[in-house]
């Protein structure tokens, strides 16, 4: 087939090989090989750009996506298992005229869904008039009696919803499904647009691509309108399922873009009949929840008691009209495929209109005749659960072997009402950039509708998912190999618009106050601790590796370092027997594990992984650079752990890089983070960890040892204070002045007293501590420790008894080791661990003894 007879420049080999399969619709070219008019400007420009430049731009964009940590979690487990978001270089193009026709139909469909919900959760005319079988509601495993008669009047049920589209060979669009809970995709749509418009900046600027930002501004406006109070500036919270969830990246991304606080169930609670955000400064009432979790997870008191992520008693606040939830609780009901075959009748019954955009033919097996049809035409069917409770992969019957087919058939026969059969559409294809050039892949299009005071409006764009395999597009939003930006080309020039402008009134300058959720502070605290712990491990291990490479591998200075590692359970204590002359070379075998083994809770990699996990939980609050620094740390260690060869040279290099990254992270924290409470908690964690580590080092080095020059030098090296020491005392090493530098020197940022002074400053500045007359327990302990250290006599501490022990030093270290965790606990219980897990009331089994003591009929 000859393509592009007229339009693409023959000089461009870019689309030379483009050959969509016959018999289906291609978005870019007609069946006779003509480029569709809406695609001509883009293809023309891409052609001029040429394959090489397009590819290099795309590689840059991919790298950018990875650097920025734009990911999705394919599995809901460890937050560390995430994949970079896969975006294609070529956007999908649609003409505005066609788009307007389609979106008018989609907006009507959204109205039907809203009316359907309003009826089912309220009056139930559709049941009374026998339009909808009652089983779809009362037999729906996701329906709760508590959903009935929640306030319907003042609050719209759907703030936004999604319809997924597929285009058939004739060019007609079909709805393959709807999402009414709190659909995914709005964040990725934005990210796709930002990346694509940057990658194809020249082209994007020249073409009249409809802008997305007004839609998001409208979303903000509508959420504000929902607020029961303070409509001008209500507190709106994006309620996420948490870092383990599939949508977490998008949740944090959207929260940042829309300017909302990202909160997990733990951050929110019902107090005083309102939903409150638990912050360091106290409780702050929330007016609107943009919820991203499942309906039955929302309130464990009235809904699913097994769920731990909800807000206990939320429904009661909703009933009282004191909080708005978007989308309303209960809205997930109608996204179940079982409703699809009933939508046309619902539309006629409730709106008096014919449903404009048809759904892919769907048969609910709960109706006998439909079930028979599905089983008789089994090979043509896609089988889905009738009630959508989770992402379940639908079954393409024709891909099953005979046995699997029989199993599925008998499952349907046993509980027909739990299944639907759906016809499969031969989807359209669209150009995609692959290693082999530009190819045609199948495409599915997710569209977004927002309910405004003037009716529904549609996002002028969407999320296109593309795959060389048509069947995989029937799955979820994240299915498919890649996604594409969707360009709606306007017939008129488009106005630039950004969400950053907007409010016409002048903002008064503000300082961030105590409006920090306690959980976020907790994570900052631990991020500080883990980062410091990682740095300490890396320094100790680097010193050991350096010594391995030196000529004298059995130097006495290694013993305390190994002892330090042994105390934290990282090396076998047997390696630390002083008599054993081959200590270091023996221990050397286990050193790589101290660096890389994730099974060891205190290995360097474990500390870094922990840092990454906590960073993940505050992603919406740290800068991209900070995130990238932590991510690079993890990445470096992970790559190293995948290598089999672990020479000491490689390991030493790895430790150098790690320390450099950690230094970069500290620099970013020091220079880049605003001095808010988040920073205070990070720094508090770091200081507490550092003084704890210094104490452990002093114990390993000095408590039982004489302290010869090599050993002191090594101690100063791992404490990062050797340079200062040399400047002051040249090459004479003595214990008292070493102790001064590491403990009592207020000018040394590594000394104990330096940490304790900072800790005291942070504690004094905590919310509620500023103006009180009395010190809190943690302040008392910190003040006491600081003065103890300040007052100590380094010569006395250095004194040894007959057996070589430094009794005074040991008792001081004992005190530190006892009090530091107490300070940490006290801070936690005051500010951080505000709640603990709620537990359910136990109930007694009814009727423990009632049998036999009653006379029937008496």
């Amino acid at each position, binding site marked *: 087939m000859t393509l592009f007879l007229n339009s693409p420049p023959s000089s461009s080999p870019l689309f030379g090989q483009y050959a969509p399969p016959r018999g289906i619709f291609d978005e870019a070219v007609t069946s006779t090989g003509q480029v569709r008019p809406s695609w001509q400007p883009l293809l023309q420009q891409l052609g001029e750009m040429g394959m090489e430049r397009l590819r290099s731009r795309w590689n840059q964009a991919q790298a950018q996506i990875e650097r920025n940590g734009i990911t999705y979690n394919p599995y809901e487990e460890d937050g560390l298992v995430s994949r970079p978001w896969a975006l294609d270089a070529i956007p999908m193009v649609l003409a505005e005229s066609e788009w307007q026709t389609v979106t008018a139909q989609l907006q009507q469909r959204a109205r039907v869904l809203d009316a359907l919900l309003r009826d089912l959760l309220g009056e139930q005319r559709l049941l009374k008039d026998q339009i909808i079988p009652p089983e779809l509601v009362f037999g729906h495993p996701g329906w709760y009696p508590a959903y009935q008669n929640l306030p319907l009047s003042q609050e719209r049920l759907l703030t936004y919803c999604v319809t997924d589209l597929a285009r058939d060979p004739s060019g007609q669009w079909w709805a393959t499904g709807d999402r009414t809970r709190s659909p995914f995709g709005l964040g990725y749509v934005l990210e796709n647009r930002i990346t694509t418009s940057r990658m194809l900046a020249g082209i994007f600027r020249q073409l009249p691509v409809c802008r997305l930002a007004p839609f998001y501004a409208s979303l903000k406006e509508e959420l504000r309108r929902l607020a029961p109070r303070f409509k001008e500036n209500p507190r709106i919270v994006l309620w996420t399922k948490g870092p383990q969830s599939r949508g977490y990246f998008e949740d944090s991304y959207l929260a940042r873009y829309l300017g909302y606080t990202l909160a997990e169930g733990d951050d929110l609670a019902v107090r005083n009949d309102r939903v409150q955000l638990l912050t360091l400064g106290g409780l702050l009432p929330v007016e609107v929840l943009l919820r991203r979790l499942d309906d039955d997870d929302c309130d464990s008191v009235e809904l699913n008691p097994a769920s731990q992520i909800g807000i206990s008693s939320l429904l009661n606040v909703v*009933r009282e009209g004191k909080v708005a939830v978007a989308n309303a609780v209960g809205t997930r009901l109608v996204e179940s495929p079982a409703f699809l075959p009933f939508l046309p009748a619902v539309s006629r019954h409730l709106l008096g209109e014919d449903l404009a955009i048809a759904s892919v033919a769907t048969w609910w097996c709960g109706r006998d005749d439909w079930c028979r049809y599905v089983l008789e035409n089994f090979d043509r069917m896609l089988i889905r659960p009738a009630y959508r409770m989770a992402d379940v992969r639908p079954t393409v019957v024709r891909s099953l072997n005979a046995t699997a087919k029989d199993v599925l058939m008998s499952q349907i026969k046993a509980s027909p009402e739990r299944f639907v059969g759906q016809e499969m559409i031969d989807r359209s294809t669209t150009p995609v950039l692959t290693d082999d050039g530009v190819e045609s892949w199948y495409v599915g299009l997710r569209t977004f509708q927002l309910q405004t005071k003037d009716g529904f409006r549609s996002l002028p764009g969407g999320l296109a998912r593309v795959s060389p395999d048509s069947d995989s597009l029937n799955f979820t939003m994240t299915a498919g190999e890649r996604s594409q930006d969707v360009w709606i080309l306007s017939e008129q020039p488009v106005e630039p618009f950004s969400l950053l402008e907007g409010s016409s009134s002048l903002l008064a300058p503000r300082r961030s106050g105590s409006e920090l959720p306690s959980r976020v502070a907790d994570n900052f605290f631990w991020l500080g601790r883990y980062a410091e712990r990682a740095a300490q491990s890396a320094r100790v291990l680097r010193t050991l590796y350096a010594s391995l490479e030196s000529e004298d591998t059995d130097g006495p200075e290694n013993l305390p370092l190994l002892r330090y590692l042994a105390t934290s359970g990282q090396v076998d204590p047997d390696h630390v027997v002083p008599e054993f002359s081959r200590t270091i070379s023996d221990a050397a075998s286990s050193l790589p594990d101290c660096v890389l083994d994730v099974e060891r809770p205190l290995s360097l990699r474990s500390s870094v992984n922990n840092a990454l996990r906590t960073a993940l939980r505050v992603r919406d609050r740290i800068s991209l650079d900070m995130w990238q620094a932590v991510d690079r740390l993890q990445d470096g260690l992970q790559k190293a752990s995948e290598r089999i060869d672990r020479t000491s040279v490689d390991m030493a290099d790895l430790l150098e890089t790690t320390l450099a990254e950690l230094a970069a992270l500290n620099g970013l924290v020091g220079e880049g983070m605003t001095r808010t409470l988040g920073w205070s908690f990070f720094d508090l964690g770091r200081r507490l960890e550092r003084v704890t580590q210094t104490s452990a080092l002093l114990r390993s080095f000095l408590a039982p040892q004489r302290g010869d020059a090599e050993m002191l030098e090594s101690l100063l090296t791992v404490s990062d204070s050797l340079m200062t020491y040399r400047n002051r005392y040249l090459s004479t090493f003595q214990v008292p002045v070493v102790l001064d530098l590491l403990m009592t020197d207020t000018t040394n940022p590594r000394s104990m007293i330096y940490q304790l002074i900072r800790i005291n400053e942070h504690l004094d500045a905590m919310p509620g501590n500023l103006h009180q007359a009395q010190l809190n327990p943690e302040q008392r302990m910190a003040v006491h420790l600081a003065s103890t250290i300040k007052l100590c006599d380094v010569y006395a501490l250095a004194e040894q008894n007959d057996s070589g022990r430094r009794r005074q030093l040991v008792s001081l270290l004992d005190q530190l080791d006892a009090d530091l965790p107490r300070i940490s606990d006290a801070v936690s219980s005051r500010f951080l661990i505000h709640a603990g897990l709620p537990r359910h009331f136990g109930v007694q089994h009814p009727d423990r003894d009632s049998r036999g003591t009653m006379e029937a009929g008496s």
Partner: protein
Amino acid sequence: MKYRITHTTSYKYSTPVSVCHNVVMLTPHECPGLIVHQHQLAIEPGPARIHQRQDMFGNVVQRFSLEESHAKLVIKAVSEVSVQDRSDLAGVTSPTCRQVVAGLADRTDARWLDVIPFVFDSPRIRRSADFHAWASADLPPDRPIVEAALALTKHIYQEFRYDKDATQVDTPTSVAFEARHGVCQDFAHVGVACLRSHGIAARYVSGYLRTLPPEGKPRLVGADQSHAWLSVYCGETLGWVDFDPTNNCLCSTDHVTVASGRDYSDVVPIKGVFLGGGEPTLSVSVDVAPLDAD
């Protein structure tokens, strides 16, 4: 028959509870055969507010929160009710199972929409071929439905071993069914599952049972129990009729209904969450005191 029912539940905590949110269903509501003269719910320590509403099945639901530290929570519900004698139902001619099921299926039964939520699966009850088969001899389509339900009641009473230690409050219905043992809650669930597997609308009832002291002994105050049984929809005329498989009888003046739902999960007497509390100790006392008829 008139009663004063006192139901006291107390939770003692080894460490203070900082917050609790509760939903309770301890208040009887007027329904055919039951008159509620008086009801009082007393909570100690007293909450700022008790929210009351009716759920979609007509049951009374109360909700409260305690947001101040407390070491003990006492919930005391006192109700004065009169129960109508329904023992005559055993003798009336009732429509057949087939007729009742058909009335719901073809919507000719005027009450179909109120009844229909009780024919499907619910959180604790899933219809199955096993339940269907086990109850087939009790529930033939052409048997009058009251007679059929009585046969099922007797069947459960005879084949299930009453064992108060064998199951827990959250034991799945299918597990109790396989093991053929349990307490009133399990028996009611099994009965409901059997009926629904035959297409018959059935609901779970929570309430109280008046117990009689052994011959010659005085009535012990507070020794009664909350109880559970099942209710079967017997057509437009008879409506819901209650059966107690634990005691093999048609419910009459000894049974006092508090709430009915699709299964236990709809009518949990006290549910909610609390923070803190250490080791809670639960104690319950129920007293069903007959009052002199006036």
